């Protein structure tokens, strides 16, 4: 049961995260990454097996939980915390510079796309000329 709940929660968090990351606005991407990171951290915990048992030997009776995934999750949490801070700074800097936090097009990409468009238009014009 708990495994199924865990799987569902991870699925929802990752789905929400992916949806937000696909956005062009950096603040939404930041929130999306927070969701993704939470989802993946829960996945790490779920990989450790059944929940409920203490992670340390010698505390309480019965089986102990696997401490390794918890150590993974802790490390990953710290890293995702630092990265969220960095992304927010980047979004703020972008807002300072352009009053916007959208991911901009690359100028060279635009240039090449423009060349392609001009060529298409020229072909179109020639074809309509031949048709006449």
């Amino acid at each position, binding site marked *: 049961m708990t495994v199924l709940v865990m799987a569902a929660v991870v699925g929802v968090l990752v789905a929400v995260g992916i949806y937000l990351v696909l956005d062009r606005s950096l603040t939404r991407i930041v929130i999306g990454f927070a969701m993704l990171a939470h989802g*993946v951290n829960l996945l790490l915990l779920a990989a450790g097996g059944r929940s409920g048992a203490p992670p340390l030997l010698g505390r309480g009776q019965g089986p102990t939980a696997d401490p390794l995934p918890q150590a993974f999750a802790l490390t990953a949490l710290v890293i995702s915390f630092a990265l969220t801070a960095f992304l927010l700074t980047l979004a703020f800097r972008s807002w300072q510079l352009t009053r916007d936090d959208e991911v901009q097009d690359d100028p060279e990409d635009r240039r090449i796309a423009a060349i392609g468009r001009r060529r298409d238009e020229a072909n179109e014009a020639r074809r309509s000329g031949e048709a006449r």
Partner: protein
Amino acid sequence: MSILVTAPIVVPILGAGVALVFRRSLVVQRVIALVAMFAVSGTNIALLVDVDRRGVRASQVGGWPAPFGITLVVDLFSALMLVMASFAILAVLVYAIGQRDVDRASRSFHPVYLVLAAGVSASFLAGDLFYLFVAFEMTLIASYVLITLGGGADQVRTGMTYVVMNLLGSTIFLATIGLVYAATGTVNIADLVDKVAALPDGVALVLGLFLLVAFGVKAAIFPLFSWLPDSYPTALTPITAIFAGLLTKVGVYAIVRTQTFLFAPDGASKLLLVIAALTMVVGVLGAIAQNDMKRILSFHIISQIGYMIMGLALFTVSGLAGAVFFMVHQIPVKTSLFLVGGIVERSTGTAGLDRLEGLVRRMPFVSVLFFLAALSLAGVPPFSGFVAKLALVEAGFDGSQWAIVAVSLVVSLLTLFSMIKIWNGAFWGAARLDGVNVPFRRPTPVPTAAAAALVGLALFVAVAARPLYGLAERAAFGLLDQRAYVAEVLRP
């Protein structure tokens, strides 16, 4: 001996800390960075000699026994990569110090650069998947800071794409670690060798593909490469150069390590061949469409990654030896090409081919450097690229993979074409600089010397091709026959 294994990580990290303390004095920062990188280069050479003589070395961090603690392992493949990486890092550091504006612009440059060096070393030394993740993050976080250094509108724009794509790759990697742990109960690579082999085929295939996607983003293989040509060229020259030379190779290293150790020989060999071909072709065609030196070179990073994946996809000793040799030759060649591009941009204010002409008369020495590095990249005999490509093509013939051999040869020709395009556009011709609207500045000696040292290293790879290829062959053998590695890591 374990001191030697940890030194490539510990020394730069310590240096970074000390350099951070001495924020006020640029001279002290420079001295610390140089001393640290010289020390690391020396250690890496010692490691390579030691590993070649006595086999795989492992170190259990904190004394925790192997499958539970953090393991650092160095085999021939990682030792070779460590040596080339530290040389490239050192040369680019000298270039950056000589060019002056990078570390003057931000006092964080030296500390962050040293963290990047530590992260790259850690990625090559990591003996378990989770430590590999941490090492990647160390490298990437440093690279995020470096790529947005200066904080101009361009850096922020391209930094965003770079950061978001790499974060996505890291997230996939972390999720895969969770899945691997759930399936096998371990993340230690040596321990995984047997445990993955015991998994049902379907599960192993899924894990292998997940890892391929996660590392593929960092290595910029097809179709996960689109972030690279947008983000690399706008960063400051030394930073672009070190990213181009090293970061994608760290991704390729991780792909090679995991695919050979954990998923060969019934791994994704056919898929990898297709990916290799598409990566080569798309990269080189992208380069042909460009008109700016740094952007052309950025697309060539992608197409060269294809060759490395081709060697891996063959899953034979000769194929992997070709791939390892290709990586060894690629690090100095690629880095030096970007450094030369940076020198040109600094002297003329542009790297656009339509605005440059006749640089060979203005800066003959730099032009010769470009010429040598470009021919090495294109694989013209007798340069290092020729040896590397010859090894790969022979391996392809041995494996009767005619299609990939044909593709690699055509891409090689197109690479030569695009190098000639840069040569004709920027270097050859009359000494007119009509399109350049800033006064021409003579190239300064220290950055030129740094680029020359790397070109020299590339030439050395060509001259010493025979012993180096022998090393690559032994490294490839160690990749396909993991018994020595596993025995050393799991030794009680």
